């Protein structure tokens, strides 16, 4: 068994994503058909009860090639939290790279927790060229975000609420930023492909009707 596992939050079963993930040099576990809220105990129990060195997490509409994933694994030897990056939507100019200094935290009407809007602080596609290879970020967006078991246990998978948006990625980012114990780092070379266009994006694609956990180990 390999020492790295990829946790995939899957409600769509997109063929290109599954094929690309198959090529990655790591074990995989697909949590199929669960909402982010339902995933909280599943993911946290899995991390607690398994014994991998590194855990990566990704949503089900992101493609990365093997070489870039290998590079992320390599950087995880030196950095506490690493992540790939991508465009938020194909028909927009925002990326998942966010300057922590630009983030404005706020309390919104539906949550007692602090949150932030990633779009308001995101780096644009034309700005990435001039950035360093290792980019300190205030958000990862679960674009193949990796960390050790210890860090995942310090910052377990959490969501805001069921009704108004779980946003587990923002929730994780805020806790890490607030504590200032670890940096979140995006590796510029590890650009992933987000299969998402806001014109065709629809929750109708999500399939919550059958739930299962599928793993390669």
């Amino acid at each position: 068994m390999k020492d790295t596992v990829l946790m995939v939050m899957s409600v769509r079963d997109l063929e290109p994503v599954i094929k690309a993930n198959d090529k990655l040099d790591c074990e995989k576990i697909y949590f199929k058909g669960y909402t982010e809220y339902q995933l909280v105990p599943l993911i946290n129990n899995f991390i607690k009860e398994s014994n991998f060195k590194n855990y990566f997490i990704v949503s089900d509409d992101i493609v990365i090639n093997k070489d870039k994933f290998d590079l992320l694994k390599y950087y995880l030897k030196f950095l506490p939290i690493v992540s790939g990056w991508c465009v938020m939507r194909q028909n927009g100019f925002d990326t998942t790279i966010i300057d922590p200094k630009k983030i404005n935290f706020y309390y919104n009407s539906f949550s007692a927790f602090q949150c932030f809007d990633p779009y308001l602080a995101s780096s644009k596609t034309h700005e990435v060229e001039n950035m360093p290879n290792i980019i300190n970020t205030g958000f990862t967006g679960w674009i193949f975000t990796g960390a050790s078991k210890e860090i995942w246990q310090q910052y377990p998978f959490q969501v805001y609420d069921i009704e108004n948006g779980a946003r587990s990625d923002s929730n994780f980012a805020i806790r890490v930023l607030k504590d200032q114990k670890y940096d979140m780092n995006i590796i510029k070379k590890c650009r992933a492909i987000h299969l998402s266009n806001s014109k065709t994006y629809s929750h109708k694609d999500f399939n919550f009707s059958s739930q299962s956990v599928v793993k390669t180990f």
Partner: protein
Amino acid sequence: MNNFKIDFSDGICIENDYTDASKTISGLNHFDVKIFVKMKEQTYTLAHEQGLQGLFHKIELFDEKIRRKQILDFKMEFNQWVKPYFYKFLVPYDIEIFYNNELQFSYSFECRHKLILFNLHPKDEKELYLWMNVIDTFKKNMNCDIAVKNDIVYSTNEFDDIVDVKYNTNYVANRHFLDLHIGRFYIPNSEIADPYYHPNGLNDKNSLEIINDILYGSYSLFKNTI
């Protein structure tokens, strides 16, 4: 006031999600949109130059300039999307969006870090290989990701260095930035090249000319507009 999106997955679509005119000083509830294309302007001059010995040499001067030409302007209401063109080939649009005569948004076509879908309809494998070669260069020049919809590409690993996402022809692919169709497309029940797919027709074009026309040939289409 900058919530604009440009989408090329089926022609060009410009949209804004701005809704509240009451918050604006002028109260106007529309934007003014101007669309430009970049045109190559080539000049050829024959001149004479005096050499060291006092002799005149004939020299040929070739100059190429990129000029911007406006092709369309229109009003776009708040919270509206507009599809001004349905061309399926690549057009390097420049877009400027104004509110009350103030520039709010400008966009010059580029596809870096975006996923470009090539729907390939080659007549044979030789043509497919040639087109994949052109797509490889396009990918490097544009710094973009490549998706290909074609059963041969889908079933082999041969092009995996070029292609990031592969689809078979039955797959409904609608998650990309730009959708391009490479092949020979005709107006139904005719032998006339479909002008929405081929900016300069198909007459006697070889495989290389067909793909080059779809990727780089659009500027000639707008030569005589405005």
